[in-house]
């Protein structure tokens, strides 16, 4: 009997095995992506079934003339820059401490990683309770220390920093994890050689450890930047984007218009703005990574 699998080798087999993954990718990623891009140039009607009529650049013109969009963009960028910077600084400091093998470092490692295990919704609810003005523990303790209670979630000038604080608490552990792994991968011989050459303390960190940690740092910052640019869940629970629109991120803005007001075409248009931002930042970071790799090879 002829073996039907006999000719099924090489490229043919490779393509066949790849096919299911390609179909899934097309169905779950590429199609929704293209469909929402298409929606952003359309007008949606549901009478007699879903109807999408071409509306040209109407939705895009509306987006670029919408003050709420610029507000959401500004807030998203502020949260991203401040939160990622703090998370990186804290993460690096704690990773260095853990890497020194201080007493109880295993216990602290587990403790530091705990917040990361929680879902953003749970973190949102937890911090909403923590920030509660009359029943929350933070505003209970502050007056005992002689400090005034703070309207964490209701004061326009403060609310953004409350969101950032929550995000820092939640995601600094990821920074620690990546940077700690990066530190662990530095060959001890290299550090030893640097020490023999007279490098120590700050100089050792600045001239040897930090450059060697650059790929891990870039990966950690890139991952967190992409995630924070899409932030919605914690803000939704903490403030709903309020008071006013003082904590409304781009994704929350898109969600409110697209899926609460069901203005699907405009919602899709809004959804593309974080995508463009994330894409641009990703390209910059990837170029930076390549540059660092080239330096490393040199």
């Amino acid at each position, binding site marked *: 009997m002829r073996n039907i699998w006999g000719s099924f080798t090489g490229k043919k087999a490779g393509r066949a095995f790849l096919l299911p993954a390609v179909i899934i990718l097309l169905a779950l990623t590429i199609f929704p992506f293209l469909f929402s891009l298409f929606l952003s140039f359309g007008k949606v009607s549901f009478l007699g079934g879903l109807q999408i009529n071409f509306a040209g650049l109407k939705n895009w013109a509306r987006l670029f003339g919408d003050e709420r969009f610029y507000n959401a963009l500004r807030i998203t960028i502020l949260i991203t820059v401040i939160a990622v910077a703090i998370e990186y600084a804290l993460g690096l400091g704690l990773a260095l401490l853990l890497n020194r093998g201080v007493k109880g470092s295993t216990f602290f490692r587990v403790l530091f990683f705990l917040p990361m295990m929680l879902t953003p919704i749970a973190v949102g609810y937890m911090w909403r309770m923590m920030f509660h003005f009359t029943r929350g523990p933070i505003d209970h303790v502050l007056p005992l220390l002689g400090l005034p209670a703070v*309207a964490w979630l209701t004061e326009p000038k403060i609310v953004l920093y409350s969101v950032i604080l929550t995000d820092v608490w939640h995601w600094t552990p990821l920074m620690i994890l990546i940077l700690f792994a990066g530190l662990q991968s530095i060959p001890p011989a290299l550090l030893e050689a640097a020490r023999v050459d007279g490098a120590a303390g700050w100089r050792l960190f600045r001239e040897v450890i930090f450059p060697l940690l650059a790929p891990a740092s870039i990966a950690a910052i890139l991952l967190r930047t992409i995630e924070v640019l899409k932030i919605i869940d914690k803000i939704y629970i903490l403030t*709903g984007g309020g008071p*006013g629109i003082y904590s409304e991120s781009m994704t929350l803005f898109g969600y409110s218009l697209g899926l609460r007001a069901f203005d699907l075409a405009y919602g899709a248009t809004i959804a593309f703005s974080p995508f463009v931002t994330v894409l641009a930042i990703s390209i910059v970071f990837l170029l930076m990574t390549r540059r660092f790799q080239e330096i490393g090879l040199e």
Partner: protein
Amino acid sequence: MFKKIKKGRFIKEAAMVILCAAVIVLGSLGSSQALAEKRFEGVEITVFTQTPPFIVKPVWMFGPDWEKKTGGKVRVISAAWAELYPKMFSSFALGAKKYDIILFPAAWLADFASNEFLVPLDNFIAADPEIDWLDILPVYRERISTYAGTIYAIPMDGDNHIFYYRRDAIENPEHQAKFKAKYGYDLAPPETWVQVRDVAEFFNGWDWDGDGRIEYGVVEAMRKDDQAYWTYFSRTAALTSIPGQPQGLFFDPETMKPLINDPGHVKALENWIEILEFGVPGMINMESGDIRGVYTVGEAAMAIDWGDIGVMADTSPESTVKGKVNYSILPGTTRAWDYVKKTWVDFPEVNHAPYLAFGGWLGAIDAKSDNVEAAYDFLSFLSRPENSYICVTTAQTGFNPCRKSHFEKLAGWYGYGFVYPEDYLGAIEATIAHPNVQPDIRIPGAARYFEALDVQLSMALAGAKTAKQALDDAAKEWERITEDLGREKQLKNYRASLGLPIE
């Protein structure tokens, strides 16, 4: 040939034959009735509503009884509040037939019915004596459940905002004396929004119930992306609704121009912004669930809410205010803005305009469902008076009174834990039956109009805009939405929702 039979024996034997025949006939009748009752054997209906326990609990309570009776199966799918509308709409619009029955807020009926997503129910109801349709209060059966004169849904729950105040605070003679000295009139349950402001100021920021904690004047849901617009319209209705005039709360029914930035609305928003000062701290970020928790642990003297605070205050184990809460129709005003004459109108008496915020939860059937008959049968079963009464007097069902019979029997309400059920039911009944009662917005795109307003209200409350600026911006956005959806079409829909003639 035939044996002569004695008369007595004959009668005995005849009686036996008749008895046997009766047993056989009745038995067969019974089995055919049982067969008829099991008419949905093998049919599974899918009910979609919000996550447990509220609203879905009645389906859990009565689903098994209906299954036993009809042989059908009830499958429940639920989603968070914010996901309900998108999931329902997309299932209908894409013809996905995911749900046979939806339990949904009345405000969305026009959106669904105008897009022909729902099964018209007039014929089903006309042929169904068990639903006792006329027992449902007129405002729910004639307005809330209909669209353009056709019934598309069955009211499961009656929803309207009522006003809450603490009996112990208002009736305290010491408080009464202090209040009179400060404001020059007697402390009493507030009749107007101006009095609400004074009473809120008076009770704000001191321990007036002697529990060792600071209490506040009022608590109202103001959080963005939640249900703040309903609180706002409750405060606005009396300032914009003149008895006998078509609703002045949302649009001009002649032109579809938004009325939300007229002086009545602006005044209401200014009042609302001012009340922040006398409210529980953090009130701007509180949703309905928060205010219920805050009020029932005794942090505020007054509140605006649906029937839920009343239920929680007297029946929740965490409540510290059991028996201390009283209820009334929403306060009114002594003047209102006449949108037709563009002038303020003064009233010799207080003008009340209670607001059917939200309008309640309705049950409807997907027009593309394969199980329409079974779905209707289940809705009817859930809604019929005896089952509905159990729902409204059971904790965590989320169903509030919407039938005459709900108000007639107090035993269930006492059993539920109410201390003064007649007062609670009285406030709800006075609201629903009021001649100047204002229904909620019921036109396609309601969610878009509310979202646009919600943002502007939140901006005004946060101090980013004045009341006038915020409402002017909201009106512009409402105009844009109306243009987008088609002014003529929207005007027809709006007039239909108010029961006005359509040319």
